[in-house]
């Protein structure tokens, strides 16, 4: 493989005087199963082999993606990419430059205890059928349940014109369960996910059946839940929700490409952006976590990146291009979903660092507020407006957890909200997720319970 890819690199360097060339090839196999109630809707398997070619010619990028590993086709495609880059360079005012990175040569071999590629498909189907059965048996008001399973195994190959060559094993296992419960005119929806980069053994630890029980219990409990009051209230965010807040409301703004686009963090480096109890990391090295890997898609080693330390913005997440623009070092955050797209700045495992409050201490001073336990999704805007939808929440009344609340969401301005964080708990959790930014990335997010003095809660009561 190395010889083929090296030949493609030299075609671009010698034939087109490319300043920089990288070739990313993949050989991947995916297995996906969907089970709806007791019906296996589809058991699928697929092969996705292909190559992404990125070249820098006269300060502009050219990119080509092609579903082959054939050397002649790749040489033609890289020539195309060089010609396209020239076409773009005529209109580019400031040439692209890359921050230096060590040219790594490495072969990363994964050693899962249970390789998902070797688990028979029958076993996977039976696991999903058990999950669905568990959900449906829990309560007859649960009307439907969908479970999706995905595993992805294979190898990524990376070579660039600076002498890097990396072969890296890839392994992801994911399981998502969602259910709908109904009682008369009230419909509720509940979902959970598990994800790992370690292996199929993840299902031995926190078993899918437990996840199924959580999904079913939440769906039925929500039938009796009431809508929240609309307005500004103190809230305690569970690790699952605070993780979404760190990822969506803050993390995207600290992706250096977004920061450079004028996000509200663009003039805040080394300044206070949050209260003193806030410390954020984006860490690509957490063992087995869904957002972990050894090298990013520019061949830069993943690392633990400190973003906010005791309330001050101290770092951003970088590709080699953004690092050069901001005189920083690459952080290993440049990721591409697959061979069809180019790498962009993405998060890995993003979280708020735990501190020392117990859960009881966090809620005891709250006269009336909300405990937001589990999220449904979230989204942020460049101006710092965030929105997080909540699938499980409770009132906090006089320092105690009260009645369940459904379909809440919170919104506000990221920086204003970060200054209102006044206490962080001690128990730490990470949750897997799939982040969308034009392309998908497997990530995780989390932290410890976090109290915010006031945030706007959307509700219909």
């Amino acid at each position: 493989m190395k010889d083929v890819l090296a030949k493609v690199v030299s075609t671009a360097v010698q034939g087109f005087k490319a300043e920089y060339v990288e070739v990313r090839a993949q050989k991947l196999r995916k297995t996906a199963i969907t089970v709806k109630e007791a019906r296996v809707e589809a058991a699928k398997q697929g092969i996705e082999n292909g190559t992404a070619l990125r070249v820098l010619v006269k300060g502009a990028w050219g990119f080509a993606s092609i579903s082959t590993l054939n050397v002649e086709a790749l040489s033609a495609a890289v020539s195309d990419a060089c010609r396209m880059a020239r076409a773009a360079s005529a209109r580019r005012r400031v040439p692209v430059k890359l921050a230096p990175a060590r040219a790594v040569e490495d072969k990363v071999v994964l050693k899962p205890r249970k390789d998902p590629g070797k688990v028979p498909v029958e076993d996977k189907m039976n696991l999903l059928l058990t999950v669905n059965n568990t959900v449906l048996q829990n309560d007859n008001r649960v009307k439907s349940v969908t479970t999706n399973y995905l595993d992805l195994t294979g190898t990524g190959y990376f070579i660039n014109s600076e002498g890097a060559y990396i072969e890296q094993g890839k392994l992801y296992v994911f399981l998502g369960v969602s259910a709908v419960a109904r009682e008369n005119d009230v419909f509720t929806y509940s979902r959970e996910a598990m994800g790992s980069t370690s292996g199929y053994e993840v299902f031995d630890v926190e078993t899918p059946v437990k996840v199924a029980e959580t999904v079913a219990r939440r769906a039925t409990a929500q039938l009796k839940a009431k809508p929240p009051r609309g307005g500004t209230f103190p809230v305690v965010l569970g690790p699952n929700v605070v993780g979404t807040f760190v990822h969506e409301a803050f993390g995207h703004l600290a992706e250096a490409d977004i920061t450079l686009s004028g996000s509200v963090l663009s003039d805040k480096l080394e300044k206070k952006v949050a209260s003193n109890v806030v410390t954020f990391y984006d860490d690509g090295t957490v063992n087995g976590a869904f957002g972990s890997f050894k090298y990013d898609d520019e061949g830069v080693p993943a690392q633990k990146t400190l973003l906010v330390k005791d309330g001050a913005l101290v770092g951003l997440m970088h590709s080699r291009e953004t690092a050069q623009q901001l005189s920083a070092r690459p952080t290993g955050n440049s990721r591409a979903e697959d061979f069809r797209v180019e790498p962009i700045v993405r998060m890995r495992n993003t979280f708020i660092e735990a501190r020392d409050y117990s859960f009881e201490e966090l809620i005891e001073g709250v006269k009336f507020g909300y405990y937001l336990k589990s999220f449904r999704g979230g989204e942020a805007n460049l101006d710092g407006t965030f929105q997080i939808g909540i699938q499980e929440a409770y009132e906090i009344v006089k320092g105690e957890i009260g009645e369940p609340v459904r379909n809440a969401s919170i919104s506000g301005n990221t920086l204003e909200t970060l200054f209102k964080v006044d206490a962080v708990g001690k128990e730490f959790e990470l949750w897997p997720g799939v982040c969308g930014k034009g392309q998908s990335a497997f990530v995780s997010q989390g932290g410890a319970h976090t109290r915010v003095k006031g945030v706007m809660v959307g509700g219909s009561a």
Partner: protein
Amino acid sequence: MAALRQQELLRLAEKASETALKKGADEAETCVFQDLSNYVSIERGQIAKTSRVIDRGLGCRAIVNKSLGFCYTNVLENETAIEETVLKALGFAKASKPDDDWHGLPAEKPFASVEGTYDRRIENLHSENLVETASVMLDAAQKKDKRVFPVEGEVRASYLSAGLANSNAVSVVDSGTMIECSLATIGHEAGEVTPVCFEFNLERTYDINPAAVGEEAARLAVSALKAKKTETKDTCVIFTQFALQQLLSYTFINAINADHVQRDQSVFRGRVGERVASEIVTVYDDGLLPGGIRTWRFDGEGVPQQKTLIIEKGVLRGFIYDNYTARKEGKGSTGNGSRASYLSTPSVDATNLHFQAGSKSAEELIGVVDEGLLVNSVQGAHTSNPASGEFSVVATPSWKIKNGEIAYPVKGAMLVGDIFHLLENVSVLAQNERKIGQLVAPWILVENVKVIGK
């Protein structure tokens, strides 16, 4: 890698389906997709890169004893790889569980003709043409106002082909083109940053106006500057097509999906013939809409696309079906078996969801509002409750309407409610229909929307 011609795609599909039958499948279906795209990306006020993507592959569904397996590959260069894919699909079918509701693959049916889905000029565009188009769009935005910063944008030209062959003598092929130019901007002035403002053209024929897109993206950003908070109250809201598309995508589109209806996840279950929306609301799923973004001769199962009545003057008339959900009820598919390229099995989805327009111009629609909001886009629609249709989203950007005129931009307003009550409260429709993703609709005015301002 040379592009495959239509007949080559179809031949691959036919051969794979034949192989599956020969190797023991009761039924087989193979689809082959090819996507040839060129695009130019704008990043942070500059043209950043030009790209070309060639993606193609083949997916085979094999059925043995009412049990289904699917396998795909993007290695089309050798016959062995394709045969291995077919054999694996068969293996998966044998490993899977029988489904008593499986009543066979679709049979051959005559096709309606479709218009405005292919333009040779798009197929023949080069990177240089796209760079030029991107420059025109970018220059138009940058000339408009110094306070505007173009964050990102794209010009993309695609040529898409699909061939499908099954064991029921369905053997069909179709090709089409798309061209898109889009620009996202922010406005900034004295430390204030606006939410992202967005404009685009996406057409099947070479009928885009990059200068107008650039100017409009810039105009929106400037008009979102100096935003104020608003009060908490129930008020009139005009939703533009962007906001409406976002809200419908995660709620209403599920409710009309036969799979959701059959599995008791839809509030519309058992309500055909009942009033479910304001009497001025009429909605079709129109897979044949001329120039529609999702207009094709056939769907992901080779079933002819069609025009299906969903809501007529507020009364629910029907749902959208793929082959499986339709046969389960002893009906025919409505041509809504959707497929995301060769990688996936079919599932029910809308084609072009067409909300019939009214007669007022946009200005006249704003003119009827004494006090309310104009909402261009919402943030967080994907966190709606997909079954109950309840949403709690932020309007970004939005503008206050006072005495029939736009007064000032509003920041951080949350809109709370559920899509079904919203549709019951639609009071006026504009005539300014446009296509946004799978939605074709005008601006709509809705009464009594709960807005949380502070």
